[in-house]
């Protein structure tokens, strides 16, 4: 596997927004059946704007970095804007991911969508 970018290593070493939100407005729980990675994303929403986001992830460097990055990307964004965030955007923000780690960014996107879906149901 080609090595991780500095950005990925930074988000892996010092992940942002680790934790859980009690009484979260939306929770997205996803797992990748192939590699077994698991992500849990919590969002706090006020007036359709994501005011806080936290995550917990079981997975490799790319998985942790992707979760960390996506929580940073959605804070302060509206639900509509957040829905526009694709896994490619996460990869770009991380200065790239090795091809075999692309699925980690996909998992992060899926966790976000599930959290938003959960928020909309409530």
């Amino acid at each position, binding site marked *: *596997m080609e090595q991780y970018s500095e950005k990925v290593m930074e988000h892996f070493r010092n992940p942002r927004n*680790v934790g859980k939100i009690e009484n979260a407005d939306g929770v997205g729980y996803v797992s990748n059946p192939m590699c*077994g990675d698991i992500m849990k994303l919590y969002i706090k929403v006020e007036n359709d704007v994501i005011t806080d986001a936290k995550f917990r992830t079981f*997975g*490799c460097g790319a*998985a942790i970095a992707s979760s960390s990055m996506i929580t940073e990307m959605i804070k302060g964004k509206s639900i509509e804007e957040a829905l526009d965030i694709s896994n490619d955007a996460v990869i770009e923000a991380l200065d790239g991911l090795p091809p*075999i780690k692309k699925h980690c960014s996909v998992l992060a996107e899926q966790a976000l969508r599930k959290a938003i879906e959960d928020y909309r149901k409530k």
Partner: protein
Amino acid sequence: MEVYLDNNATTPLSEEVLNEMAETMRVFGNASSLHSPGVKARKTIETARHRVATVLGSEEDEIIFTSGGTESDNLAIMGYLRTTDKKHIVTSCIEHPAVLNVFRYLGNTGYDIDLIGVDEKGRVDPEEFCSVLRDDTAMISIMMANNEVGAIQPVNEIVKGVKDYSEDIAVHTDAVQAFGKMRMNCRETGVDMLSVSAHKINGPKGVGALYVRRGFKIEPVYFGGHHERGLRPGTENVQGIAGFGKASEVAVGIMAENISRWDKLKKKLSDGISGSISDIRINSHQEYAISNTLNVSFRNVEGEAVLLMLDDAGINVSTGSACTSGTGEPSHVLKAMGLDELDAKGSIRFSLGRYNTEDEIDYVIEKLDKVISRLREVSPL
């Protein structure tokens, strides 16, 4: 502190090997030439061959130099199968890809293959292994010690069982990981072929050997000149071979001392881990494993993440997690031993080498505790 604990992956060159290779760097002749530079190169190679043969308990003409363990395994299997029409072959499911993938390739090209499972200690049962032998069994291959969990296989019993069934079935053992870590003697084990490699015993990468018992016939798998008794053409890697010869001699010379030190360090590491970290599973067996290998699963954290954080602390290990395998598949060895996905994913292999010390182990235990705690905080499980 820099702590290298991935000696089963590869090892640094020892001083003895470095010096030996340095001395031979100016031996430039082609060992097949009849003039003085050629003769010098030839002597260098034969000195190395003598060293390897001596420590393996074999004759010099039974040692073929190759480019390493993988080539030796391929030459053994493909080279022997060229001499027989029989199409059934047997091996264990925990072999290194250098054996397993040869078998898989053969399985896809007309051979009948049997992959024998292991118990929870990572050991093959000799009776089960021999129970699949048939009239058309051409050969079997069984590793001497497993690289991931260190499990020592019952090679002697299997050889006996196979030869009792039929003297015509060829027996090969991949001893790449076992060499220098446990006592071995080609003659005594009774195998027909045995693979070893230099870079696991503080020797250079790119060189290894295949022991082929006198009188046992195999054919070359690629063609060219008549080097290595016509079995392995190609102008010899004189410096690599010289390094390998020296490495073999030293490895066996210091083996008892290494084993004694590894027993102590492995126990210290294992006890230290069990004592300070909860929710773990020790995958490598205490008794039936080479003493330098400790494989541990840390529940609820992922192996690559552990590896990277340990690397940040200067500690180098490897993992059985799918995330690092390149195939997306977790360790086939751990899976065969019955570990569930989660345990395989959180597995770390610590493999001791010649240079590890007690201070290093203390440091590793301290850092590991912090790394696992931190990753468990991040984990949703």
